[in-house]
């Protein structure tokens, strides 16, 4: 029913003016949502604005699309969860909550992948992102946690100043939503629906299966696959080398260095047989651990 007659293109589901207006509204809402140390009602108004803009876009799209296209109701559920969680990642002042909302975004994205017949990629996304990368992030957040100050009742208590105040929120939201408006205009205002013609039939039997993907990768993308393994190895070596380097702190806070935790005379080289001695700097004290 779409694009059947080539001369008569279907009307764009979102008119250009509506896209611009909604992007402006969502930009104002995001600006109000960004952490700025403002009052809570102010931020709530921003949240309502963003949610309203998103709902209007969704309503326009639902009205334009036929209901069976693109996974139906699950598409709307997953994208609503994913985008809401993404906004919360950006706007939540506490980094731990940002990381947890990012997990929610990952799960919603995995749901979208399943709707796009990419089951293996959905599983890989959950395992790699929610399982590996996010754990690393949470570890680093906890390692670098600032000291909490008291059991204050205020919602922003114990947060560092750089978490409360954001940097150039007006400029950044303007640039971001201008980009979004341009992208949406390119997507929707091209005079027709981008509904796939070829795959309106039933999906192939092995669509999205791990076997098909593995066969494709190992026959067509073998060099790229080996290179990606090499990149992972190199980055692992680099991360180990970066993390084991000890640097002196600049603001006078005690940080154990190799010289302060090993006794004098203990070789601080890379020899695995050298015995580090912790807790003494006095050469007359025992210079080897007791057993």
């Amino acid at each position: 029913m779409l694009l059947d007659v080539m001369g008569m293109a279907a009307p764009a589901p979102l008119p250009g003016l509506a896209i611009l207006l909604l992007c402006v509204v969502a930009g104002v809402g995001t600006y109000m949502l960004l952490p700025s140390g403002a009052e809570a009602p102010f931020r709530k108004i921003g949240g309502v604005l963003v949610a309203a803009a998103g709902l209007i876009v969704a309503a326009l799209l639902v009205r334009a699309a036929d209901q069976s296209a693109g996974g139906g109701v699950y598409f709307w559920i997953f994208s609503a969860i994913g985008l809401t969680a993404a906004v919360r990642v950006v706007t939540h002042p506490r980094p731990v909550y940002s990381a947890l909302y990012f997990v929610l975004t990952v799960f919603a994205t995995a749901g979208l992948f399943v709707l796009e017949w990419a089951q293996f990629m959905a599983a890989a996304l959950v395992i790699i992102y929610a399982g590996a990368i996010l754990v690393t992030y949470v570890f680093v957040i906890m390692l670098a946690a600032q000291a909490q100050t008291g059991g204050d009742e205020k919602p922003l208590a114990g947060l560092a100043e750089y978490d409360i105040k954001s940097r150039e929120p007006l400029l950044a939201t303007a640039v971001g939503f201008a980009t979004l408006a341009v992208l949406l205009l390119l997507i929707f205002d091209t005079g027709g629906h981008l509904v796939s013609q070829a795959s309106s039939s039933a999906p192939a039997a092995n669509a999205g299966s791990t076997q098909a993907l593995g066969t494709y990768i190992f026959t067509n993308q073998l060099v790229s696959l080996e290179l990606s393994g090499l990149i992972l190895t190199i980055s692992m070596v680099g991360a180990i080398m970066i993390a084991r380097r000890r640097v002196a702190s600049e603001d006078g806070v005690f940080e154990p260095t190799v010289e302060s935790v090993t006794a004098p005379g203990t070789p601080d080289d890379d020899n695995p047989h050298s015995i580090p001695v912790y807790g003494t700097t006095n050469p007359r004290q025992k210079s080897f651990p007791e057993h």
Partner: protein
Amino acid sequence: MDQFALEQYLAVGAAMFVIGLIGFMTRRNLIVMFLCTELMFQGVAINLIAFGRYHDNLAGQAFVIFVLVIAAAEASLALGLVILLFRRRHSLDADAWRDMKG
């Protein structure tokens, strides 16, 4: 069977990319900044897989695998550097390093 509406997925991917972009520009916490780059990766991955589905081939999914690899490498290196910087200045503020501006 059902038809696949590419433009909806492209819109979601674009929105997620832009949210990550705004977060990268506004947040000052180094860890949250890198979290926002991961959001941008997700938006791009949605687009790639949607195009792969639209053209009915596996190239999009294969590309997303490489995106995941680069994301993992980037996260490990970036978090190592963040730890190093935190040990030195005891702050996660990106503005604490503004003297590195040329």
